[in-house]
Structures are given as C-alpha cells and as structure tokens.
C-alpha cells in the first residue's frame, strides 16, 4: 500500500510558474540541431505553438483533492439563494478537471461567484477553491468578456475604486453631494449597471494619510516593536477614524508605526477577474511591505479582506518576489495584539463611555476564513459597558463590489436577509464588524450605525482624550 503523500496540496497551491532557464539552445549538440532542421524540411506536421500557455496557471492537479462531497455547495451563500448558480464545486474542481490545455471556455456563471471564500474554509479536503475561482474568473474576463462592454467598464471602475477615490477625496464635500444625488445614482444604474438602491459611501474631508502626514507620523520610535500598517483604501478615504484608532491602540502598546506606500490590496480586482490590475497592485504592495519587513516591521491590516488578500490570494495567484515572506508576516490588527501582547489583560477593567453600548456583531467571511470569527467577542467580553451579540455565521451578501452591481443587488439582499434578521433580534441598535463592505450592507439592511472593533478598543484603551488629537 502506498503511503499518503506528505502534503499533496503543496504543489497545487503554491507551485510557482516555471520560467527559469534550464538549458540554453546553445547547449544542444550540433547533430541535434541539424536533425531538427532536416525534419522541419521533411514533415508537414506542424506542432501547435504552446509556449505562451506554459506561463499560465494550471490548477488541474488541485482537482485531485475533491471527492465531490458538496460541502462547499451547501455552504455557498450565493448557491443558497440563486438556483441558477452552479456552486463552488462546479466552478472549481469540476470545471478545471474538464479542461484540456487549449480550452478557454470558462462558464460565465463564474461571474456570479461573490468571492466570499467560504468554500475554502468549509472544504474538508483542502481543495484550493477560491484560487480556482479567481483564476477561472481571470481567464473568463480575459478571453470571453468584451473590453468594450458596459459590464467590463463597470467592473473595471468598481475594481479600481482606489483610482477614483483620490479625486473624490480632493473635493470630498462636492463628491459626497454629487454621489448622493438621486440623479447620479439613477445614471449609475442606467449607464453603468451600478445599483441605485445603495448610497455611495461618504468620503472623509481629510484622508488618513493626510492626517498621518500632518501628524508627522508615529509618536513612538521603537526599533524592537515596529508594525507597518496596511490601511487599504477604505480606511484611508472613507473611515480614517478606524485607521486613527489603530494608530492610537498600537502606540498605547509602545509600537512604532510605519505607513508604507500602498495600492489597493486587490480584493475587488480578484472578484472582478481583473488579475492584471491585481498583479500590478500586488507588485507594489509586496515590494513596499517586504522592505518594511526588512526594516524589522510586521504587517498589520485593519480590513479583513486586505489581510486575507495578502496572506492567501497573493501567494496563490502571483509569483512576485517576496510574496511568501510578506504573506507569512502579515496579520489582522487585533489578532496581532492578541498574539504579541496580552490584549485581554490590558482590557481587563477598562470601560467605554455611553457612545458604545450594545452591538450586533457580524464576523466577515474573510475574517472567518482566517480563523478569526470568534476573536472580537472574546476580546470585547472583558470591556465594561459594551455588550456584543454574535449574529451568527451567515454571509452579509455584499461581498465587496458584488452587491453593488445592478444584476446582483437582489441576490445580495437575499443572502443578507438572515443577517438582517439576526441583527434585529439581537436587541442592539448598532452594528460591529471589521469589513468595510459588510458594514455598508449592515447599515443598508438595518439602518444601524456600524462601528469597527478597533474603534471600541481605542475607546477602552486610550479613552476619550484620543479625540483631542484629531484636529
């Protein structure tokens, strides 16, 4: 009997794309070159040119791990509400296994996948499902979607929100007014297919990075305790209060914070099959974060999708130099403090003011996939004056840009229904989560104001004097 391979998944998940020179043509013997000339003259057999394909991701071996149990399908929030969606098993291992090398017809249903990545964490056999979906989606967009279609343009805009945000941030008040106008939303739906049901998130009058520059960076200098903060786009342009909370909490523990140059983490780009855009972002992020790591920092992120992207999707999809190192040294901001500091003890006996009271907490899918779904409840349990109720393991349904699309809006709301119900049953009048788009959905579905966990930690650990700093 053969022994079970030590780690059959290793090559499938992380195998870098082969590109290295192993033998140059010059090393070939003369007679070999001659004979190849001869046969070229003689034969009418024209071998197919396959060289470009050798550069592409081949995930067929990943299908080896699937034994068809369908656990992924039963846990897929999209499949639950949309009978037309074939589910992760088909999108992933089945579709890849049916491929021959030259085949490019990925089924269009891959665009209905919301990239919540729940299938990854529910699979009992470690099938690299989201990697298969991301890659298939990338192939679909590359091969099958017209670059002139409204859908492509809309997806490109949504995926590259970061490119538009600086413009809005330059004139935040105007932008907020314009984006809030019903005519804008109507136009958005009619011309681009962005649902008019949702209100665009407000842009902050001062971005986090502007604040950070004005503040002259970190108040703490400590070569032994240094973190590089990956704030992502949303905390920078829309919710700088979350980013500021992170800064103050970390400084409270004596950390020196650096804020490297950064692009979008890539999450919305993966979800829209814009792998080339995502690769460009990843190249910048990996380069900058790797250099911070070289300077002795660990990377922390306040957005659960950003940390997910850097930790899992980068190594699965790109072979950028240093990716593995950056992935291994990136943390969720709260997780990092739990591991490196005694966060619970520090919180023991702390309290928060009346601005925080009861919360309905939703664990984002991307936090769940990192094994962090229980963390917020455990951490806040010891803080006086705050009462957190978990609303269960349902998906919020918005999944980043997914729920912004006109055609997905209803599906997105159907998925979110369970969460909305649980939120209203929780008896709290406010929501808590770590994911920006989950918070949009929570607010949209319940009208609650949504807070980030780091803001509560800031109130508990730093207290109300924090507010005086933010001029």
């Amino acid at each position, binding site marked *: *009997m*053969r*022994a*079970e*391979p030590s780690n*059959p998944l290793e*090559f499938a998940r992380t195998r870098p*794309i*082969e590109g290295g*020179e*192993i*033998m*140059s*043509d010059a*090393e*070939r013997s003369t*007679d*070999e*070159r001659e*004979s*190849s000339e*001869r*046969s*070229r003259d*003689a*034969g*009418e*057999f024209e*071998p197919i040119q*396959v*060289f470009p394909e*050798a550069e592409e991701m*081949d995930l*067929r*071996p990943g*299908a*080896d*791990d*699937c*034994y*068809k*149990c369908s656990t992924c399908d039963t846990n897929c929030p999209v499949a639950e509400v949309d009978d037309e969606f*074939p589910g992760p*098993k*088909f999108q992933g291992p*089945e*579709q890849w*296994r*049916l*491929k*021959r*090398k*030259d*085949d490019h*017809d*990925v*089924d*269009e*249903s891959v665009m209905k996948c919301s990239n919540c990545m729940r299938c990854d964490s529910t699979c009992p*056999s470690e099938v690299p499902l989201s990697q298969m979906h991301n890659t298939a989606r990338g192939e679909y967009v590359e091969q099958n979607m017209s670059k002139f279609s409204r859908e492509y343009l809309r997806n490109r805009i949504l995926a590259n929100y970061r490119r538009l945000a600086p413009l809005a941030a330059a004139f935040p008040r105007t932008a907020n007014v314009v984006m809030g106008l019903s005519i804008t939303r109507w136009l958005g739906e009619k011309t681009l297919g962005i649902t008019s049901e949702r209100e665009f998130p407000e842009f902050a009058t001062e971005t986090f990075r502007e604040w950070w520059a004005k503040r002259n960076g970190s108040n703490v200098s400590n070569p032994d305790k240094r973190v590089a903060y990956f704030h992502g786009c949303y905390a920078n342009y829309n919710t700088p209060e979350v980013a500021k909370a992170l800064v103050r909490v970390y400084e409270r523990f004596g950390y020196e914070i650096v804020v490297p140059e950064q692009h979008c983490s890539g999450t919305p780009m993966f979800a829209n099959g814009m792998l080339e855009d995502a690769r460009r972002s990843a190249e910048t992020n990996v380069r900058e974060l790797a250099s911070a790591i070289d300077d002795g920092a660990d990377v922390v992120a306040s957005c659960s999708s950003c940390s997910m992207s850097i930790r899992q999707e980068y190594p699965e999809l790109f072979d950028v130099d240093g990716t593995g190192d950056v992935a291994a040294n990136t943390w969720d901001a709260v997780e990092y403090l739990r591991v490196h500091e005694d966060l619970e003890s520090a919180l023991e006996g702390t309290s928060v003011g009346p601005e925080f009271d009861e919360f309905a907490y939703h664990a984002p899918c991307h936090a769940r996939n990192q094994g962090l779904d229980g963390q917020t409840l455990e951490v806040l349990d010891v803080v006086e004056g705050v009462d957190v109720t978990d609303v269960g393991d349902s998906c919020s349904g918005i999944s980043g840009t997914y729920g912004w699309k006109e055609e997905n809006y209803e599906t997105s709301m159907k998925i979110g229904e369970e969460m909305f119900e649980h939120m209203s049953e929780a008896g709290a009048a406010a929501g808590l989560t770590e994911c920006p788009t989950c918070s949009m959905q929570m607010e949209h579905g319940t009208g609650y104001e949504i807070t980030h966990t780091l803001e509560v930690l800031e109130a508990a650990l730093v207290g109300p004097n924090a507010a005086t700093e933010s001029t």
Partner: protein
Amino acid sequence: MATETDVLVLGGGSTGCGIARDLAMRGLEVTLVERYNLTDGTTGRMHGLLHSGGRYAVSDRESATECIEENEILRNIAGHCVEMTGGLFVKRPEDSDSYFREKLEGCRECGIPARALSGREAREREPYLAEDVSRAIEVPDGAVDPFRLCVANALDAEAHGARIETHAEVVDLLREGADVYGVRVRHDSGPGRRNHGTSGSTEEITAEYVVNATGAWAGQIAAMADLEVEVRPSKGVMTIMNVRQVDTVINRCRPKGDADIIVPHETTAILGTTDEEVTDPDDYPEAEWEVDTMIDTLSELVPILSEARTLRSFWGVRPLYEPPERGTADPTDITRDFFLLDHDERDGVSGLVSIVGGKFTTYRAMAEEISDFVCGKLGVRAACPTAEEPLPGSENLERLEDGMDDFGLRSPIARRSKQRLGSRSRAVLETDEPNPVICPCEGVTRAEVRDAIAQSGSDLNAVRIRTRASMGNCQGGFCCGPMANELHPDYDEVTVRRALDELFEERWKGQRHALWGEQLSQAMLNYALHATTMNRDRDPASADPSDPEADAASLEYAAFDAGEGR
C-alpha cells in the same frame, strides 16, 4: 433452428468491429457476436495511444510506417475519437544518446514528422516534466478513445445492415468434417438490445465464413473446433490518474522497458505499462507492486505523479502471437504485427480464419486486409471504403466546430459533450426537455445518457463506454444511481436494480488498486452514500423474492477478528 448470415465475426473489439464495418460496407451480410460488451477484451484495456509510429521507429520500421499512415487516416475518419495531443520521446541523462539519434533517424526514414527539442523547450511545452529531462523528440502521437472508436465502427456496421450481438458468448464452433459452418451462442439475456429482465437463450448462427477475431481468446475459440492457435497472452497494467498532468503523450526514449508512457486521455492521464506473459487471459494475478512500479518509474519523467491521485488501475492482455517455431522468450520481443491464420491452408479446415497479434492504431488496415481475404474466399469483388468514409460522429467536423451552439449547457459541459459526440451533437443534445448533468465529473447530460440507452438497452456499462459517465473522479459514486434512474420506466424495477449493481460493481473493481490518499477518501464517501444512506449493503428490496432463505440479515460475526494487539 439456425440463423443464417454471410460472414460471422467473433469478437467485439476493434478488430472485430472494424471487420464487421468493412464487410458490411462492401455489401455483405454480417453478424458479430461478443461475449460481454463491445471493447470488453483488450480494446477497452489499452492506454489510448494513437501511435505516430515513433515507438517502433528503431525496432520495427515496417510497423512504424504503417502506424503513421493509419494515424493520418484515423484523424480524418474518426476525428471525434482522436485528440491530436502530439507526443514527446523524452531522454533522461542516463538514457543513451545513440538511441536518441537512432530514434530521430528512424522517424525520419519512416516518414514520421519528428523534431528534436532541448530540455527547456520540452518543459515549456509540458511544465511538469522533470528538470533533468535533457532532450526530447516531438512526434505526432495522439490520444484515441478506444470505446468511442469501437462503438462508432459497430454503429456504422449496423447502419449498413450488420447485426451486432453483445452478451452473446460462443459456446461451440459448429464443424462438420473439414468445414466450420457457424457457432452456437448463449445469449445472456436474450438476443437484441440488452435487457436484464429477459431470460437467457441459445442460438445457432450459420455462416458462409467465420472470422475468429477474439484476440487473446482466439486459441480458446479455435479449440472448440479442435484447432490449435498458439496465442501468447501478455498482460500489462495501466493506471489512470485523476487529472491530466500532461497534455502531450510522454514516451521515455529508451529501447524497451516497463512503465515508459503517459497518455493524456480525455480528462485523465493513463500510465502504462508492463509486459508479462500469462497462461489464461481471463485469470491472472493483479499485483499492487505493478501499480507502484508504474507510478515510481514514471515519476522520473513527471515528478508530480508521485503525489497525484489515481482513480483506478486495470490490466489488459495483449493477443501476442508468433509462429511457434520462432520461440521468442521475452514477450516484449514478440512482434506487434498481426497474423492471418487461414485454417484451410494451415489445418485443412475450411470456413474459418483467425486473426491474432496486431495493434489498435492499425486496426483499420488489419480489417481491410482480412476483409479482402474473406471477400476473396467468397468471390466478392468490392473495394474497401473505410479509409475515406468517416465514422458516424466524424462527418464534416471542421464545419461543425464553428456553427454549433451550446445547447443551453454550461460551456465546459457543452464543450466536452461536443468533443465526444462530434457531428452527432445536434441530434443528441438538442432537446426541448430539461437536460441536467447526470455525471458531473465527466460533464455528461441526460440527453447523452438516453442516446446511449437507446443504442444498448439496459446495460449501464455499455452506457458508460459510450458516454464516459461514471468514469470520473467519484468513479460512479454520485452518478450510478441517476444513470440507472434513466432506465425507468422503460425498464422495470428489477431490471434497473440489476443494471445498477452491475455498473457499480464494475466501477468498484478497478478502484481496489487505488485505495490510498484521496481515492480512499472518495471510496469511503461512496461507501457511506451507497451503503448507509441508500441502504444498498442490505436493502431488503434487493433480496431475491423467490428465495426467503437468502435473507441479507445474517451477519457472520465470527468472520471478524478482535483487532490488532487484543
């Protein structure tokens, strides 16, 4: 009472079906009998290589030349059974340089287009090739689906008036004096399309001429007429991988040896093979170490094979033959050429010819030669059309590629269905009824399963070889039931249950040699689904109603030991 026919062909493999088609197209009345399913003997147990001839380019140039000729013909007449993957002969550092040169030279002399590649070029083409593969020769090898090809021949023979009887075992050759004039067959479930609900019967079929195309079983058939045919059956193991690690046929470039070929076959890759003489083609040992050798040795060429999932392993028996006076000891040295044994000339018994030896790639040329011979015996003058006339499914394939829609199927399912059905796609897949996927592993829809049932009756193994349903990674765990479901209500419950059991047992058989790692998990899940959830291990409904004693509830507790160390 006997049934009469012009020519009776024994054996439903590629040779028999090829001969039946050829003779039927020449206007003869043909009956073909096969003891189990089409392809059940050697044809369905091969690695699916469409030879370029490269493998024989050093040792047997005549065969090599014949291979490349037939390779080109099959691409034309059986495009929907063939995938032109191309092939590589790869050389590892320890393999001989001079043999590499001889191979290249041999290909050139036999008219096989061949090109030398550096190791780097070979890896650009097949990224999973070993780092130390130093050189390769590119040849036009291909992959062929032996099931589809054989069935297409049988279908076309039927279209030309032939009678194809499967599950009809020859129990006697009818001989009177020095003349063989027919056979007696036992129909497993009556003549015609298989129906498990019909009781068995026997039938005498008489013919002007009998063609013994039973390959490795030719000796057993000949013995029924007291004739001797010294077939030397030689077994070889093949292991099926769950996915295609390579998209090109990978041959090892060395003179001979076990485990030297990987063929990308449909959704899988097939590793082959070994060569060992056996005495009985129906009864020989199947050993675990043979499978291990296959994987270990071929991992030298494609290292990820050592950690990859295998679906099953199977053994096939080559119908090797050589005139007894040659006395070659090693079966690998026995020629792969075929022999036409004219029993009239050889034994003084008329009315019978036996065909032995030969190889799948050249089945059509063999069939042509034998048909010419039979026509000569019967005084029939008709030209052989099989090199030009496409098989059903391969008519106007190029034109069809462009114009075809997806028939409302998800695109990878539509693609695979169209690759299997070829020009029959529209006829089979265009339906007003819902067309759900029955076999998700292989992407087989209800329409295709029903088309196969219409061809072969209640026999789900016949449906399997026609559609590939149940040949994917769950090995029927999920689709056997839904496949059987399609038999109802045309067939009654008892028939459907028997058909289901037969298919599931067949699927299980080959998995015995793949039970580690993921395929073991798969087998456990299949067991849980079938035995516990579906109650298939002791379903009272399966019990024979006529025999209340055979109650499935009697469990032999004594058969269990106390467990290790107790």
